[in-house]
């Protein structure tokens, strides 16, 4: 148990280092994110935001240090256990990562099929999530036919359809116009309100301050500051 009001940490990093060959990308990162917390990872391009998210969904391994996601230690997790971990973590990628040859419906349904949900339950759940992100009318379309904002909304639908405990979003508004960006952020906030822990990598400060939450500042792979922003009452330095 640690942190605010005795809420347990769902993400825990301790002295984490990561490097791509000779290039050190993350250095001695230690922090915790609590259950049902809305957290932002901020920093300029090349600060290590995407790498940090990759470590959190086990898309990469830390060179040193310990990472724990919902009690599972990532440095020792057997390969066969990765699918179980990833079902707890919904990821929204900067480049959407939708399967081009599969329809919007199939892309979203894939998460439930992979998790072994009963076939009869899948259509109802997928259509309800697509309706939530305003994409139900595009269920049969291929992702290539959609705009960037629409693809991002499908990516959000895919990330939330399995009711994951954690949602990781990498620059979810990076390629979007203001209205689409706000729509995607509203969806993420809705997931947070429903109980998920949401971690968003972004450098859009205005958007972050509009939403409020905890901000972790990253610079050249190091954690250089942490603050909490209350969208109604301003910021608190932690």
């Amino acid at each position, binding site marked *: 148990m640690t942190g605010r009001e005795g809420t347990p940490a769902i993400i825990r990093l301790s002295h984490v280092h990561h490097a791509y060959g000779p290039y050190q990308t993350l250095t001695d990162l230690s922090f915790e994110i609590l259950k049902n917390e809305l957290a932002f990872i901020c920093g300029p391009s090349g600060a290590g935001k995407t790498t940090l998210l990759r470590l959190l969904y086990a898309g990469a391994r830390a060179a040193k240090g310990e990472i724990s996601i919902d009690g599972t230690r990532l440095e020792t997790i057997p390969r066969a256990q990765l699918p179980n971990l990833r079902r707890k973590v919904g990821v929204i990628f900067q480049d959407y*990562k939708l399967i081009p040859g599969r329809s919007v419906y199939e892309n979203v349904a894939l*998460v439930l099929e*992979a998790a072994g949900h009963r*076939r009869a339950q899948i259509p109802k759940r997928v259509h309800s999530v697509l309706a939530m992100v305003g994409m139900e009318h595009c269920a049969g379309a291929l992702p290539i036919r959609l705009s960037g904002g629409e693809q991002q909304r499908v990516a959000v639908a895919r990330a939330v359809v399995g009711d994951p405990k954690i949602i990781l979003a990498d620059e979810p508004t990076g390629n979007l116009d203001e209205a689409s960006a706000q729509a995607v952020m509203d969806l993420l906030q809705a997931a947070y309100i429903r109980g998920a822990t949401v971690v968003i990598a972004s450098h859009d400060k205005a958007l972050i301050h509009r939403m409020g939450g905890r901000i972790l500042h990253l610079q050249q792979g190091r954690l250089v500051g942490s603050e909490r922003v209350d969208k109604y009452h301003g910021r608190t330095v932690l």
Partner: protein
Amino acid sequence: MVARYFKWALEDIRSNRFIHAVTLITIALTVMIVSAALLLFINAGDWMSAWQQGTRIMAYLRPESGAAAAALQQSIESIPGVQRAVFIPRDEALRDLKSRIEHPASLFENLMENPLPDAFEIQLRPSDQSWEQFEAVAARVRSLAEVEDVEYGRQWVLAVRRVAQFFQTTGLALMGLLLVAAVAIVANTTRLVLYSRREEVEIMRLVGATERFIKAPFYLGGMLQGLVAAALGLGILFAVFSALATRIEQSGLAGVITLRFLSLEQMAAIAVASMLVGWLGCYVSLKQVLKS
């Protein structure tokens, strides 16, 4: 879940039509060649059996042993595998020889006495007519004191067996090579498809799909290809076989050469083997490409 695997497997085949068609034809050709070799072995085996059934063991007796023919006949017929032994007196053998030679007078006019020995013509039971049994019975007969020599076309038997063995060995080696080649081709096809779907596989992993979930459509596709290729290969072979059988029948050789096609069980075994080739090809490439 299986329906989804099927759907994805068929989609894969459809979206990579050309490369799958090449693979399908290769497996079908392999199936056809292997099945043709099998067909040849089976029919050659039938012809050998028919030939064996016409083969007799001749036991030539020592001079003056003819008197004990009745007792000797009993001894020979008591040897396991012997159906019956017919005594052929030397005079009858000479008469028979003369009747078979067109101009016997010149050949036999200076003959002072009959040079042929008394003999027994020994026939084996149909169920015991293996070459091993022929050799075993011949050895038992040869060991009898009254018997001077035994003849059953041993040289022929050995020569035919050597040829049959040679064809069997080279045939098996060829079949093995073809199967390995087919597996390699399926593996290459699957590898190409996998490379084209690498990103998709990566995304599936990231959303929590297990390796089994990812690989199942590939295995299913490989086995499906194997099954269709087996049907195609066997179908073509049957067409060729039917045409050949009709020709033989028309040429009047029907009574001499009897042909039969593979049984249902054999065809089922070939189809299973072909599916296994498809599965194995997938296994090899999936192991290589999806290890990371």
